[in-house]
Every structure is written in structure tokens, then in C-alpha cells.
């Protein structure tokens, strides 16, 4: 046990050494902060940088505050639990190395790139960094997600950037109505995410295989979806989802929708077009399967209209899943035209496809048109003329009897009035 502790301490120490060139020059300034905090503060010598103990001498005291009254407290215990515990305060607050004490209130901004060069370089390309460059004070910087003195590793379950906690961290801004209104960022999607299959699996089942925000958007180099380099740009979405849903992504890419996307055609859907971006629901739920029919209809307007005229369309519109929706015949992801022999709606496959529900379907049966259009004489001639006949029949019957009824009604009203008038006459006479 003791050996292990010593070993761990040595490791932390070695890491700290490698991180800070400055620290190498003054190895004596790297005692464990907790130990240092216990010793009485002494004013640092003018030619020697202050140690952590010197800093905590003032900053662990709850009464330490700026002139405007805001506290500038850093608890040694909090810092000791952070991933940076092995570093000296001046390793980050480098401007304090040579400062006179008490030092000025306004310190230079900490440059995380001193150590985290790659992460900061990525961050600088991000929508957050660009917003900051544009003058935003709300866009996230390093500390907004990672914290400052309390920063913990993302592998630490208590870290704000841990997989199970990241969504809540992003929601500090992206779920905050005030921040949304002031910074013009997209409307709150955090609740949709929390209700989604991904959000629920993370929160309720604690499954870390489900993606959190960074799974799709990236972490440091988050870009707007309209940026073609973004993993959530429409063209990249199938690959992004495919990181986990590889089998589905392969099917999707083989289908007409995936091909449209690959050809750079913007009217083709990607995963989020049907599944939504944040509110993704379980695909085996009837409610979702019914709602996605409407999604298909947002592009396939004529197809959905003719589908709604059929029994399948009527029953699904009523909210019952016992009959076929789009995906039952066309397939969900690898959607292919009827001209492709692999398609479930290819003529040779129709008996099998219809037969999934209609057990005794035969060649005659599949002459049924699941998208019959009564207004299309070329596609459905018999239906077209029968529909015309029915319209004439209904208009004729209601027209003639409507007229008959109107005449009759007015005649009887008149007759009643006359009768009342005569009885009135007799009564007064």
C-alpha cells in the first residue's frame, strides 16, 4: 500500500516535471499543495517565484476578495483533487512569477496552450472560439466546460467533461433560455436530447456506449452544421452515426438516399432528416414508426397523399400500427427503386413483400396499387373513371334532393303560416 502511494506520488511528480520546463528549474517548488497549505504563509523572497503555499496563504481564506467584493477563494482541497494538483499556481498564472505581493487584481489570461497545445489549436477553429473572436463573452472557453481550479480528467466520473456528465455541462449554455436569447445560438435541444434514446440510455442505464454531445459534434473543434467539415454537416451525418451504427450506415449508403447524399445533392435526406438530430427515438416503437411516415411525406408529397387514400394510409393516420407504413414495403435504410431487382418493391419481389402481412398473396393480389391515384387516368384508369362516376352520382343525388328539400321546406313553412293566419282570422272573427 505504502509503496503504491509513493509510486503514485512519484508518477504525479514526474508528469508535472515533464509538463513544466519552469518547474524543472525549481523542483523544490513542487511540494504537494495540501502539505504546503498547512504550513504558515511566508512572504516569498523577491527573487524566488511564489510556491503554492504562498498563494493559499491568502486564497484559501474565505474572506479574500476583490475590491468589488467578489471572492477569490481557491480551496486547497479542491485544487488537490483536480487533475492539475501537481502543478504550481504560477505554472498557469505565469504573470505572478515575478509579481510584487499582494499582486494586482487583474491577472493575465491563463494560456492553456502552454501544455494543451493541440486541444487549444483545435478549439481555435471552433464555433465557440470564433464567436469569442467576434466579441462574444458568452461562448464557451476552456474553463466554461473544464472548470478552472477544479478541472478534472474526463475519465474521472465527477468531471464536468465525463461522458455521463457532458450533456449537463453543454446544457449550462445550450439549455439556458437567457444565453440562447442573448447569443442567438440554436433553440434548446437539451431536453430533446434528454428524452431521446441516447439521452435516456446515458442517464438511466448509464451506458457509455451511447453518444453524448461530443460523440457527434466533436469536443474542442465544434463546427456549425452548415460547415462542410463538421461531423454533423448533412453529408457527413451517415458516417458520424455510422461510427456506432455501422451496419445501418452501410445499408443507407447503398440506398437511393445515401447515393443522393454521396452525389452531393442537398435534397437527399441523411439520418437526422427522419430520426431528428437530438430527439432520436427507439425505432421499434409504434409511435415513432407512425410519425416517420409523415417525415417521408415531407419530400414525397404525392406519394404520401396517395398512400393516405389507401387503407394502409387511413389506419396509420388513425394511429394504429397494424398495417403497412412506408418502411414495411420500401425498407427503412437501403431504399431502392422498383427497377432495382434487389428492391422489395421490384415486381419479382412483390408477392414476398406483400406476403409479409398478406399470407396468401399471389400474383393477382399484388396488382393492387398501394399508391393508387384517382386523379391519374394514366396510372389508374378504372379507378379514375369510377371516381368520376361517383363524384357525379354524389353531386347528382345531393343536388337533386337538396333542391327538392329546399322547395319542400319553404312550401311547408308557407303552408303553416297560411294555416296559422286562417285560424287566427277565425279566432278574431
Amino acid at each position, binding site marked *: 500500500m505504502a509503496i503504491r502511494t509513493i509510486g503514485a506520488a512519484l508518477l504525479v511528480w514526474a508528469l508535472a516535471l515533464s509538463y513544466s520546463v519552469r518547474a524543472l528549474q525549481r523542483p523544490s517548488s513542487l511540494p504537494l499543495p495540501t502539505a504546503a497549505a498547512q504550513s504558515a504563509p511566508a512572504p516569498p523572497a523577491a527573487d524566488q517565484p511564489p510556491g503554492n503555499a504562498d498563494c493559499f496563504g491568502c486564497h484559501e481564506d474565505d474572506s479574500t476578495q476583490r475590491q468589488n467584493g467578489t471572492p477569490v477563494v481557491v480551496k486547497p482541497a479542491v485544487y488537490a483533487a483536480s487533475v492539475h494538483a501537481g502543478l504550481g499556481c504560477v505554472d498557469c498564472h505565469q504573470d505572478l512569477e515575478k509579481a510584487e505581493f499582494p499582486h494586482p487584481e487583474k491577472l493575465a489570461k491563463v494560456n492553456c496552450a502552454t501544455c494543451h497545445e493541440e486541444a487549444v489549436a483545435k478549439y481555435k477553429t471552433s464555433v465557440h472560439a470564433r464567436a469569442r473572436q467576434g466579441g462574444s463573452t458568452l461562448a464557451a472557453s476552456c474553463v466554461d466546460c473544464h472548470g478552472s481550479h477544479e478541472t478534472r480528467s474526463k475519465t474521472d466520473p465527477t468531471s464536468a467533461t465525463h461522458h455521463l456528465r457532458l450533456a449537463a455541462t453543454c446544457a449550462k449554455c445550450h439549455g439556458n433560455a437567457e444565453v440562447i436569447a442573448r447569443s442567438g445560438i440554436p433553440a434548446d435541444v437539451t431536453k430533446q436530447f434528454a428524452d431521446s434514446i441516447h439521452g435516456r440510455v446515458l442517464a438511466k442505464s448509464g451506458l457509455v456506449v451511447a453518444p453524448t454531445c461530443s460523440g457527434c459534434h466533436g469536443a474542442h473543434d465544434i463546427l456549425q452544421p452548415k460547415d462542410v467539415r463538421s461531423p454533423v454537416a448533412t453529408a457527413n451525418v451517415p458516417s458520424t452515426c455510422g461510427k456506432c451504427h455501422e451496419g445501418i450506415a452501410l445499408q443507407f449508403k447503398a440506398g437511393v438516399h445515401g447515393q443522393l447524399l454521396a452525389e452531393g445533392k442537398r435534397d437527399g435526406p441523411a439520418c437526422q432528416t427522419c430520426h431528428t438530430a437530438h430527439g432520436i427515438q427507439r425505432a421499434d416503437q409504434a409511435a415513432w414508426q407512425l410519425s416517420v411516415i409523415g417525415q417521408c411525406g415531407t419530400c414525397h408529397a404525392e406519394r404520401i397523399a396517395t398512400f*393516405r387514400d389507401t387503407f394502409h394510409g*387511413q389506419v396509420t*393516420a388513425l*394511429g*394504429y400500427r397494424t398495417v403497412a407504413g412506408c418502411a414495411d414495403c420500401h425498407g427503412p435504410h437501403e431504399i431502392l427503386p422498383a427497377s432495382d431487382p434487389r428492391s422489395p418493391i421490384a415486381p419479382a419481389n412483390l408477392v414476398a413483400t406483400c406476403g409479409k402481412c398478406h399470407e396468401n398473396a399471389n400474383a393477382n*393480389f399484388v396488382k393492387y396499387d398501394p399508391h393508387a391515384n384517382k386523379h391519374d387516368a394514366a396510372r389508374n384508369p*378504372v379507378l379514375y373513371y369510377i371516381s368520376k362516376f361517383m363524384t357525379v352520382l354524389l353531386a347528382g343525388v*345531393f343536388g337533386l334532393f337538396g333542391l327538392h328539400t329546399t322547395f*319542400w321546406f319553404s312550401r311547408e313553412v308557407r303552408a303553416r303560416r297560411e294555416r296559422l293566419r286562417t285560424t287566427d282570422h277565425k279566432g278574431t272573427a
Partner: protein
Amino acid sequence: MTTAFSGERHITRFSRADRVLHGLLMLSFLGLALTGMPLLFSTSAWATRLARVLGGFAVAGTLHRVFAVLLIGVFATHLARIVRRVVVEKDHSVLWGPTSLVPQPRDLADVVQHFRWFVGRGPRPAFERYTYWEKFDYWAVFWGMAIIGGSGLMLWFPELFSRVVPGWMFNVALLVHGEEALLAVGFIFTIHFFNGHLRPEKFPMDIVIFTGRLTEAELQHERPAEYARLQASGELGRLRAPAPTPRDVVVGRTIGTTAVAIGLLLVGLIVFAVITH
């Protein structure tokens, strides 16, 4: 105007069997309309709610088929009774003549005369036992049974029918089933209700189809030709009946009011769905 039934002499117009059959016809028709309309107007908000009230699509579908079988049973019973009267009882008056429901030349004259009366250019036609609009209602059921019943059976057993008819006939079947149902429902719940119950002379309702009797004065006023014929042949005396009991009247009014209320509600929903579509 007299409201008391007991003080007047009554005549039997409909036999008990006819009244029962009409009652079952009403029941099955209302049931079919209620369970079918949600499907026809499936994209309307009320359709979803009505389907749920009926116990869901599957239950509504089963009820629809139960009512369909009932209606087919009523229709078959009626046909069987007609056949018996013609074949067994050798009563050919069913097929032709003043008491037949088969359209007669005089019906055409009645239509013309009725319209003349509407515009004040002549007396009211002297109607016989069945008027032209009643005959239209009657034959509309035959047409409806063939079209809606036939298409309904096709839609009920598509795999079976597909052995004989091509699949696109199911497209046609669904279209005519719905359109014809709309015609039937719209016609019965507006025109038939108006002719039978809601027009000023009958308002709020005529319960002869429930009690089977009407007053002699009513018969004389509404169907003078029939009244004269019955008087001349001496049949009138044989058809005399006691006034319907107060209970019969209440039962008749309750059934009639309920049916009219459901019917008008459905018409309202249909109109709403068509307007908001």
C-alpha cells in the same frame, strides 16, 4: 292541431316484422357509419378520438364487420319475405300496382305535381301507399347493399377475392366503399331525416315506423289515394288498430331522437372534416 293519440282512430301502416327489420337496419346502419367514418376521415382530429372511444381500430373494425353481418342478415330476411309473398302466397301486388315499391308511371306524375305544389301551381299530389321519395330510399338500399356490401366483402377477404379479381380492384373497392358510404350516410342523415321527421309538417318526428300506426286523419291527408282505395275496398276497417300506448310512443320517440342525434352529429363531423381538410 291534435296531439292526443288516444282520441283518434288509428290505422296500421307497418307490420311488426317490418318495424323490427327497420329497427335492426337503423342499428346496423348507425353502427356501420360510426365505426367506418373514422377510417374515411382518418386525418381529422375527431377521427382519432372516435376510433379510440370505439376501443381502437381493431375493435372498431370488428364491430364494423358485426354490423355488416347484421345488415346483410336484415337485407336477406327482407328478400326472403318478399320471395315468400310472391312465390308461396302468390301475392303479386308486391311486384306491381298501388301497394308495390316498384316505381309506377304515376310516380313520375307525382314528382311533377309535387314540384308544381312546391311553387304554388297546383294541389298536392294524391299519394298512394309509397311516395316516390320513399321508393327512392328503398331502392337506394338495394344499390347500396350491392356496392357497399360487395366492396366491403372484397376488402374483408382480399386474399380470397384475389384468386378471381386483379389487385387493382381493391383500390376500386375501397374508393366506392367510402364514396358510397358517404352518399348513404349523407343521404339518410339529411334527406331521409328531413323527409321523414324534420320538415315542418312532421317536426320533430314521425314515429309511425316505430309504432306501426298513424291516425286516420294523417293517412287521409298524406296519402289520399291510398285512403280512398282502402275505403272503397273495405280494407280500412280491417286495418283499424288501437292507438299506440304511451309507452310505445315514448319508446319510439327515444329511438328516433337518438338516431337523429347520432346522425346529425356524424353529418356535422363529416362537414367539419371536409371543410378543414
